[in-house]
Each structure stands twice: as C-alpha cells, then as structure tokens.
C-alpha cells in the first residue's frame, strides 16, 4: 500500500509521456492527483504496513508532510489544467523583453509533473537515508524540465543554476550519508544500517564526532535544496522563471521535502545527545535566512521573486521553530502547513495576474481589485496570511514560536525575529497594496483581459479559507498529529 503512493504517479508519469492527445493527458493528471490524495487520506485511517525491512514506512512526520504535498498537488493539477489550456500554441511573445519563444511539449511537462509527485512521495516515505538521498536528487532532476517549460534564455539560466547548485548541494549530502555510515561502523561488527529507527535505537554505539560531521554536511546539502540562506541562490531565479503552478509546488511541497531530510538527521542527533548542537545550527540558519529574505523583499521590483524570497523567510521560521525546541517545534511544524497553503495560493494568483497584465514587475500592475476582483481579494487575503496577521493560521504559528523563544530566554533571537517580521510586513505591504489599489491603465481595460476562470480562482480561494480556518480552530486530529511529530523531534507536544 505504501509503495502504491509512489508507484501510481510514477506509472502515470511514464504514461503521460506517450499520450499524444492533450485532453486525455490532462484527465490523467487530475485522476492521478485524485487517486494520490485519496490514498493519502486513507493512510490517516489505516496506517500502511512498513515495507522492505522498514526502509519504507510512514511515520507521523512523513504522514503530515505527505498530506500537505498531496493536497497541494491536487490543487496544482486543477489549476494546471486550466493553465495549460490557456497557454498559446506555437510561437509566443515574452512578457518582459518581447522576443518570440516556444513552450516545451506539454507531454513532457505533464509527465515530469507526475514524476515530481512520485519522487517527493518517495522522499517522504523512505526511512533509509540512502533512499532518501536518491529520491531527493531525483526530485531535482525531474523538476528541472518543469522550470524550463517556457523555452527562453532566462529560464535556461534559472534551470542551469537550479540543476548545478542543487546537484552539488545534494552531493554534499551524500558525503554526509557516508559520514553517517562511518559513525555507525564499530570495530569487528556489522555497521549500523542507515535506517532511521535503527540509528535512533542504537544511538549509544554511534561515533559522536562523525555524527557531528554528518549532520553538518546533510544540513548544508539538504539546506541548499530547502533554501536556507546563504545557500538559497537558486531559489528566487527558479521560482520566478518557472510557470506559476510549478513555483507553487516547488515552494509549497519541495522545500518541505528537503526540510524532512534535515529533520530525520536532527532526530538521530537528538537521540545521540547532539541535540544541542543541531538545534543551535538550525536556529542560526533560520535567523540568517529570515534576515537575508527581508533584505531582498524590501523594494523588490518583481512580485514573483518577492514570493520566492518570502519562501526563504518562512523556511527560516520553520527551522528556527524546530531549533528552539519545546513548544516551538509544534509551532514550526504548524507553520509549515500554513506556509505551504498560503504560498501555493499566492503563486496561483500571481499566475492569474501575469496572464492578465503580462508582466512580473510590481510597478506594471495597478488596480488589481478592479481588474480581477476575485484574484484581487485573494491577493490581499494572501498578503495578510503570509505576513502572519491575525486571524490567519500563520499568526498563530508565528506567535507560538515567539512565545516559546521568550519562555526559553532566547531574547536576542526573539528580538531579531520580531524586527525582521516587521520589516517584511512593511516591505510586502508596499508591494501588495500598490498592486491591488489604483486604477488599471486604460488600455488594459480596453484589451479586456481574460475573465478569471473558475479553475484558476477556486484552488487559491480554498487554500486561503483553509489557512483562515486553521487560525480560528485547529482540528483535534491535526493537533494530535502535530503533537506526536513534535515529540519525535524532541519538542513538547
């Protein structure tokens, strides 16, 4: 059962490469997304059996992030179908520089999208560090063609940076894995297998020095993929050049997968008595990421890049929460779902804005509320949610982290956290509000940009409502899952 979650999208992805007609292929995309979501929903009621000697197992952390991924993919599939049918065939004009380019074949796009889901699922269900690594590198390779969907020189640049930086980063994580093997090698015995439960169970036998080195390399390696500053350099380029539906998945789902890779290592470190060191590093990288993101969000001229930097910021917040320990772990994990839903919604709407205004620049967009009323309202709602304003869920999670930081006496961290959040709020308010208000340029009105299609507004609307509801009430099953996951990570439930 557990492997089916990975194999179904994989098989569908292979099939999609060879389906020559657009309509059936789009139906295949939606059906696979539905099947995956259904399967993952079933996992909440019947926990699947571990497979292959415990290499594949769905623990609470995996289940939580797998559910986010699956939900996001379902929305992205719905949005993506509408998006693909709106893309012109043949030659297209670039929105920024006005040259002519073409799209990659749609079959490749859909196939890679489904493979992307398969590889992300594999990351989340694998308990073996080797398999985790293989799956993580595979996510990079199948998502590179997605970024290069619009075939022009800027997307080539983004794709090349993404491929090279992430591959090198993940290769460092491979070195980290080897260090982990050395840490588990004991003279005259078989080495401890790289399975999470074994490593945690036999923590007393691990060599502490090598474990430290392993954590450092895995943190840097997977941190590159997760977008922790200063390793985030691929992220704004890839997110801004990829089609919006891909950006939403990269930001909302892929970064979480990389986070899970780090969390697994953190679990081993905590068990072996190195929790203090790994937490400290996570806190440091978290605060640094928030700070870097704030620098680039202020006065950012490109709204998709702004959203990308905001992902760096939120991954920083999550890392900070995990690193603080105590009740902040709960807050950090809860923040992950808030961020994923909000950011996906914002990228979807950014796609709608780009379709209507033909620009990514903040100054080129005015009068959003008049031009695209529904998207405009959602854009404002998304702004409030992403900056952690009450009553959205992200306010709650950010507040839990702040409170925990103060309770534990991390006053410096708390001050930096608050200052950065305030700066980002101000920077984003300028961007979002300027875009929403005002009067659209007269020629825009005349051109009568496309009406907002239901499929392209519905997914972000649902996500905004969900984040709002999470801020008002966390359902019992979610609270219980978060508590359990926080306990696994050494925090308070």
């Amino acid at each position, binding site marked *: 059962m557990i492997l089916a979650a990975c194999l179904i999208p994989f098989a569908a992805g292979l099939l999609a490469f060879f389906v020559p007609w657009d309509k059936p292929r789009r139906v295949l995309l939606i059906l696979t997304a539905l099947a995956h979501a259904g399967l993952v929903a079933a996992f909440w009621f019947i926990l699947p059996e571990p497979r292959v000697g415990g290499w594949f197992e769905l623990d609470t952390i995996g289940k939580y992030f797998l559910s986010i991924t699956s939900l996001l993919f379902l929305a992205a599939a719905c949005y993506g179908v509408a998006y693909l049918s709106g893309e012109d065939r043949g030659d297209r004009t670039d929105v920024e*520089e006005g040259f002519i380019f073409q799209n990659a074949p749609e079959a490749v796009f859909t196939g890679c999208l489904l493979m992307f889901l398969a590889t992300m699922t594999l990351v989340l269900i694998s308990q*073996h560090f*080797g*398999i985790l*690594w*293989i799956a993580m*590198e*595979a996510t*990079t*390779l199948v998502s*590179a*063609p997605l970024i*290069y969907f619009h*075939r*022009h*020189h*800027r997307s*080539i*640049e*983004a*794709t*090349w*940076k993404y*491929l*090279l930086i992430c*591959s*090198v980063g993940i*290769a460092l994580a*491979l*070195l980290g894995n*080897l260090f982990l*093997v*050395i840490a588990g*090698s004991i*003279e005259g015995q*078989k*080495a401890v*297998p*790289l399975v999470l439960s074994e490593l945690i169970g036999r923590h007393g036998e691990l060599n502490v*020095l090598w474990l430290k080195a392993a954590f450092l390399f895995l943190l840097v390696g997977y941190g590159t993929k997760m977008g922790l500053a200063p390793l985030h350099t691929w992220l*704004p*380029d890839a997110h*801004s*050049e990829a089609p919006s539906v891909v950006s939403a998945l990269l930001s909302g789902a892929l970064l979480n997968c990389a986070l899970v890779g780090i969390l697994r290592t953190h679990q081993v470190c905590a068990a072996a008595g190195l929790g203090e060191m790994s937490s400290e590093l996570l806190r440091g990288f978290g605060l640094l990421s928030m700070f870097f993101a704030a620098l*680039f969000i202020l006065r*950012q001229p490109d709204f998709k*890049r702004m959203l990308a930097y905001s992902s760096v910021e939120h991954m920083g917040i999550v890392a900070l929460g995990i690193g603080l320990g105590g009740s902040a772990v709960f807050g950090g994990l809860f923040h992950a779902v808030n961020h994923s839903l909000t950011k996906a919604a914002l990228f979807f709407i950014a796609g709608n804005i780009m379709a209507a205004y033909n620009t990514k620049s903040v100054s080129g967009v005015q009068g959003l509320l008049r031009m695209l009323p529904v998207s405009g309202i959602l854009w404002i709602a998304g702004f409030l949610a992403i900056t952690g304003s009450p009553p959205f869920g992200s306010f709650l999670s950010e507040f839990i982290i702040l409170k925990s930081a103060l309770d534990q006496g991390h006053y410096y961290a708390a001050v930096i956290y608050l200052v950065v959040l305030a700066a980002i709020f101000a920077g984003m308010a300028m961007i979002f509000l300027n875009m929403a208000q005002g009067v659209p340029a007269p020629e825009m009105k005349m051109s009568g940009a496309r009406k907002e299609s239901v499929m392209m507004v519905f997914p972000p609307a649902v996500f905004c409502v969900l984040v709002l509801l999470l801020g008002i009430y966390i359902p019992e099953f979610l609270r219980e899952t978060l508590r359990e996951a926080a306990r696994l990570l050494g925090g308070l439930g």
Partner: protein
Amino acid sequence: MQELTEIVMVFLILANLWLLASSRLMVCIRIVACQGIVISLLPFLINRHLLLTEFLAVAGVTAALKGFVFPWLLRRAMREAKVRREIETSVPYSVSVLIGILILAISLWISSRLPMPKPELTELIVPVSFFTILVGLFVIVSRVMALSQVLGYLVFENGIYAFGVALLLEQPLWVELGILLDVFVAVFVMGIMIFHISREFDNINTDQLSELADWNSPEKEGRR
C-alpha cells in the same frame, strides 16, 4: 600490493592536476573517464578477497557508466555545441595548478586529523579522495563553460565515490545502484541543457547566464 596502491594514488593526483591545467575539452573528458574507471576498481585493489558477485556488479556498472557512457554523452554535447576548448576561465591555468597543489596540501592536512575506522587501509586514499572532491568543486566554480562545469561535477562525484568505496563502507546494493542511476540522469539532463544553452546563445559559456540577479551592475541595467 602497497606499491600498486601508491602508484594508483599518484595517478589520481596527477590526473586531477592535469585536468586543472588542460584547456582541451576532449583531453579533460578522457582524464575524467580514466579517473572514473580507476576509482570504480579501487575496492579490489584494497582488498583482493572481494570478488563477490555483488561487488563485481556494482564495479562493472560504475566503470561502464563513468568510463564509457558519460564520455560518450559529453562528447555528443561537445559536438552539438561545436566547441573544442575552453578559452576564457575566471582563473588562469597556471594559477589553477598552483591552487590545485594548495588544495592537495589542505586535504592531506585535514585527513591527517580525522580519526578513521581502519587507518592502515585508508592512509592514502582518504586525502586523495578529498583532493578529488575539492578539485571538482574548484573546476565548477572557476570554469566558465557549461560543459566544464559538468566535468567538475563528475570529478566531485568521483571523489565522493572514492571516499565511500575505498573505506569499504557497506551500502546495500540497491542504494549503490540508485545513486549511480541518479548521477547518470543528472549528466543526461545536464547534457540536454548544454544543447539548449548552445542553441540559445551560440556558445556554452555560463557567464552569459547572469541576467537574473537582484543587484545588477549599472551597465547591465542600461542594456536591459
């Protein structure tokens, strides 16, 4: 046995230095291929009692990929991009060789300070593998051509492989093969991207890939 190991290690060191000094892409591809084959045969050199099917299978697949498939893919990319040699580098060749020697010293120093589980086996192999890893990173950073960066990635990967294999770290067969598959697909995808880069820009220099940034220099702003 010890002597043979030493000769191989010296070969690996020289191969890395040669790579740093060479501007001809064809030569670079051949060096990296030879290095790959040698590294995939390392485990037998260290321990002759290893002639098990499992080890043989992994070593055979690795040698075939690194020695023949990757060079073939890269040569194809080279032909499609119509390039023969790297003309500009951000670091001159003579300086890169000097930096290479510096890197060698650093890797010797680092590995002398690491507590290894089986020190008698790994005396030479660990510094050489670190050296290879660092040279790979340096090539990625210092070379301008996309193809050379892929070569750097391969050298980097060779170094990691040497480190793992030389220590006889026990990884399950499936994991080994999965890692190889990933590297293969990575080189494949990068090859495709090189083709697209050459078509888009008429050459494969990555210094043209510098438009996306948040702080552009004024002259570039003017150009846009």
